[in-house]
């Protein structure tokens, strides 16, 4: 059989196979221009929905804020913590001792009387005699 016969056979087979696909047998589909314009709102609404869900979850699962202790109506506010260091009465050296921490000095100043706690009333620190 010649090339022409084989080519004719191929042509016939391809035409028959293509003719089996008809317009009625093809799935209906919208042309891309219409499909694209119809769905422009989809990503926008999906984003908004995701944002709303995230905010809702955050609001529901947020840990509760710590509750402040109730304040007595007639009580005065707590005395302010003095940042001045309290001199130690048993200091025997001219060199300054270790500076107490803020919390320690605050508690000390709160408990001690103002006269004794003031360094002016205690006078200068003198070298201890042996």
């Amino acid at each position: 059989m010649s090339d022409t016969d084989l080519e004719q056979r191929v042509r016939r087979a391809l035409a028959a196979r293509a003719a089996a696909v008809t317009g009625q047998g093809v799935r209906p589909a919208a042309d891309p221009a219409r499909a694209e314009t119809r769905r422009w709102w989809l990503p926008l609404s999906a984003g908004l929905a995701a944002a709303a869900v995230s905010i809702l979850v955050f609001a529901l699962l947020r840990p509760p804020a710590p509750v402040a202790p109730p304040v007595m109506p007639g009580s005065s506010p707590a005395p302010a913590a003095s940042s001045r260091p309290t001199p130690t009465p048993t200091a025997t050296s001219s060199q300054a001792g270790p500076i107490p921490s803020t919390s320690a000095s605050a508690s000390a100043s709160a408990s001690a009387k103002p006269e004794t706690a003031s360094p002016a009333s205690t006078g200068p620190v003198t070298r201890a005699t042996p």
Partner: protein
Amino acid sequence: MTFALPMPTSLLRWMRGAMSGPAVAAPADAPAISALYRERRLPLIRMAVLMVDDQPTAEDIVQDVFTRLYRRHRDDLSAVADPYAYLISGVMNAARSVLRRRRIARAYLPPRRDPVPAAEDQALLGADNLEVIRALGRLTARQRQIIVLRYWSDLSEREIATALRISAGTVKSTAHHALRVLRAQLGEK
């Protein structure tokens, strides 16, 4: 907490157009993609069926190619020299990818018997045509592309070369080799 909302491309394009002044109308002679879709969808599906032997896959291929064309050029196809050749090229490339994926999948799956053709297909095609179609299925993807474009689309060697982005010499030699393989498979001496 910040959220990055996706902005629809059509909205962006509308904003760009509104800011840049009056819209420039597409040239009157440029074929709108909707008209092209109505005219060429069915022939392209037929061509894809000849390549992949599966109508739903062929429909998906054609729809994807039209969607890609629309996303790239919108309704103004004046930048495309020959929209139909562009579509043929897109369908052929997509069909070749499908065949390649099938071949890779087949390599990792246990061998199966060839599916028995439906009685409807046998009645419509006839035994002789069915034998030729089956023999076409055993060609390589490139050989099959060239046979389909040459004997069904009636494209010249130069047009096939342009559509597939290969040389005319490659088209000629591949077609010759494909016919030789077909002749051997169909038992013609």
